[in-house]
């Protein structure tokens, strides 16, 4: 009589609860706010517990939890921001198919490593990530933080693999673009750089990072 409920609780604590850290980290990257991340994951876990019966025991629990996380995030936490997001997404879509694409490619060809010379940039990366549209951000979080395969992401986000690829690649491109803008705004990266003797390991005509300037700007 008591057994089923107790077993359910124990199974859940054994199988689902160990993913709490991953969920929390991903939620933090998605919401960029510790409070929201906690609320989000709390919702996710309670939902997961309520639907624990429907979880197939030999399938991937982490993916199942992330599916709930994705749905919960999109449904409840994004609603307020939805209007702005749609606009952002539209602009982003257009940028990736316009002339901007050429510009971005140009960036990627030059010196992508140079954007990330210092670890204190991690806050910038978080901020840049938070600025990209939710669907793109989800794809980036699921792939680049959580290491899910395209196919797993397709199942989590309930969309075709092709859509995953376009969201992921566009998301990354937008991220790179933001990082570049931050770098320029902080005087780390010069749009056009002469030769002042600053050293970049990959050298050539790429954008120069002046680390001293960068550190001073912090």
């Amino acid at each position, binding site marked *: 009589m008591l057994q089923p409920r107790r077993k359910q609780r124990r199974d859940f604590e054994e199988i689902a609860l160990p993913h709490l850290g991953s969920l929390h980290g991903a939620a933090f*990257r998605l919401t960029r706010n510790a409070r929201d991340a906690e609320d989000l994951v709390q919702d996710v876990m309670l939902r997961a517990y309520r639907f624990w019966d429907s979880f197939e025991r030999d399938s991937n629990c982490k993916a199942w939890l992330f599916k709930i996380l994705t749905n919960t995030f999109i449904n409840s936490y994004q609603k307020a921001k939805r209007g702005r997001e749609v606009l952002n997404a539209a602009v982003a879509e257009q940028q990736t198919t316009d002339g901007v694409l050429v510009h971005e490619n140009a960036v990627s060809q030059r010196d992508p*490593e140079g954007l990330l010379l210092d670890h204190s940039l991690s806050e910038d990366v978080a901020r840049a990530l938070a600025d990209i549209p939710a669907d793109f951000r989800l794809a980036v979080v699921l*792939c*680049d*933080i959580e290491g899910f395969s395209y196919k797993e992401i397709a199942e989590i986000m309930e969309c075709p693999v092709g859509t995953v690829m376009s969201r992921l690649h566009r998301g990354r491109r937008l991220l790179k673009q933001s*990082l570049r803008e931050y770098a320029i705004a902080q005087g780390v990266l010069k749009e056009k750089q002469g030769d002042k003797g600053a050293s970049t390991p990959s050298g050539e005509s790429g954008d120069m990072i002046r680390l001293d300037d960068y550190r001073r700007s912090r």
Partner: protein
Amino acid sequence: MATQCKDIEALLPTYLDGELDPHDRLSVDHHVADCAECRERVRAEASYLQQVRALLVPPAMPAELARLDQRVRAGLDDEDRRAMQVRRRTGVAWVLPGGASLAAAAALVMFVVSEVRPVPVAPAEAPAVRQAVRDRINDSPVRVGSPQEVSVAAQQYLRKPVRTPQFRPQGSSLRGWQPRELDGRDAVLLLYDVPDSRGSLHQVTVHLIDASGLDLRGSERWKIGSTELWVASLGGVSTVTYKDQYGFGYVFSSDMELEELAWLVVGTDVFHRSRELRDQ
């Protein structure tokens, strides 16, 4: 068709993610082997991706995570409790009173149907439980200290390894302890403030006592899985007692409802640990 420089841009992200189909992958490999410029491009892009991934790793937040873990477990408790009430409403008992008396059964039903407090009064309470209840209202001052300090003091007093229970609800705190005597045995009284499910604070006292051979007759026995709780309600005070796997006893008493107190006890760390050991 052989891969050319202009194709690399489109294939690169998928290539780096290791998600290209074998045919495309091979053709990229071939091209890169021949083209120094694309080789450099692949190298730089791979390095960028690796760094960005490292930067994306969320910061470690142990305190937040611990708090969240507690919150989630408390949420699961609530879910369990709700499920239990639903089952009880539909006539399936989840917690089975060991020697279920009619009065207790009626009280449990009343608890569900209305907000009436269940008062299963057992005929003759065990002396230890009666004393524990009386002890609640003793007015000698408690000795204050951090949970660690209290543990150490209690351990010295009882000459046994002691764990001071931790309650799950946020806002629970250990206020202090007193050396006491219960049924002729050394005991340590711990005084806690614990919020109930509506958030109002209650005093909960816990008597730690060597319970081997302790007489608990008179209290009602509830079974939660393989673990037994002895519960009683005396003059408006609820008590819940359980023995851990070492025969160590914990007598919880509070003015909150019996049911509520039982759930708090079940949620404490000492209860979990002992249950897990027993179940293995």
